[in-house]
């Protein structure tokens, strides 16, 4: 099998990139938290969003009640 020989074309990991990357991951973790664990603290919708995404939470393997 001929492996496609290609030079690696991603930005080098500078301190600045690392900071941006960590900030991005932080924001995305908030989004994941909203789906998986939030009980109104972030969504500010009471339990509405929690209940709305209830089936998804169970099927994504997250513990729930």
């Amino acid at each position, binding site marked *: 099998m001929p492996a*496609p020989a290609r030079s690696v074309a991603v*930005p080098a990991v500078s301190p600045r990139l690392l900071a941006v*990357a960590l900030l991005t*991951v932080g924001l995305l973790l908030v989004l*994941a938290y*909203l789906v998986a664990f939030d009980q109104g603290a972030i969504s500010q919708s009471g*339990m509405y969003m929690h209940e709305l995404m209830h089936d998804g939470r*169970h*099927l994504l393997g997250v513990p729930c009640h």
Partner: protein
Amino acid sequence: MRTFGNLLVRGLIVGLFAGLLAGTFAYVMGEPHIDAAIAIEEAGGAAHTHGEEPAAQAPAAEEEEPLVSRNGQRFGLFLATSLYGVALGGIFAVGFALLRRRLRTPSDSYAALGLAAAGFVGIVLVPFLKYPPNPPAVGDPETITKRTITYLLTLVIGLLAVWAGVAASRWAQRFGDAPWIRPAGGGLAFVVTIVAAYLILPSINEVPGSFPATLLWQFRFASLGTQAVLWTLLGFGYAALMDRHSKVTKETVAA
């Protein structure tokens, strides 16, 4: 050279599609089992809706109007898997950008597939084996905090175990170049890490003896399947985008 933003946007888009399709799988394969579990719960009279005070008396509680109807929750399933897909896709892309240079393959596509496989094993498979997910109607609301913490721990341990496996397999190279040395070293480090973690973490089993085992496992495999669809599409979707992008770059360079 791809910019970080470029890599990230690809991940978010691929994650959205992977999440939508995982939602479709979950809807077809999982919803019937959730409905069945809820039917058992209602027949059992142990009314449960979270977020509300435990009703003083169960019979009255059964008449409660749910905050979101069952149809609303079926729609919410797609919202949940899509948002979760976007989040995972973005984190996956950040991981790709940071780790790409350390992955020993010249192909971006193989790198994406390898990362997705590592993510699936660490974030899905390791937690699944220790704390298999339960349908609604199973589980004690009192222990939710404990179950959440132990679940998150298995997730971190899963990723650590994958990392330990990769590191050990590279380290094992110095003991010779027989073809079995690297997989043996990597596999050993991976297995030792998760076995130690499984022994230390508490066992949690809140499934009532009366709950049908078949239904329980049908639900669990639907859940595993949903996440398998999500990660498979994440990996192949990202790999495909990388491949296309590379070709475009080549043409541009050649032109």
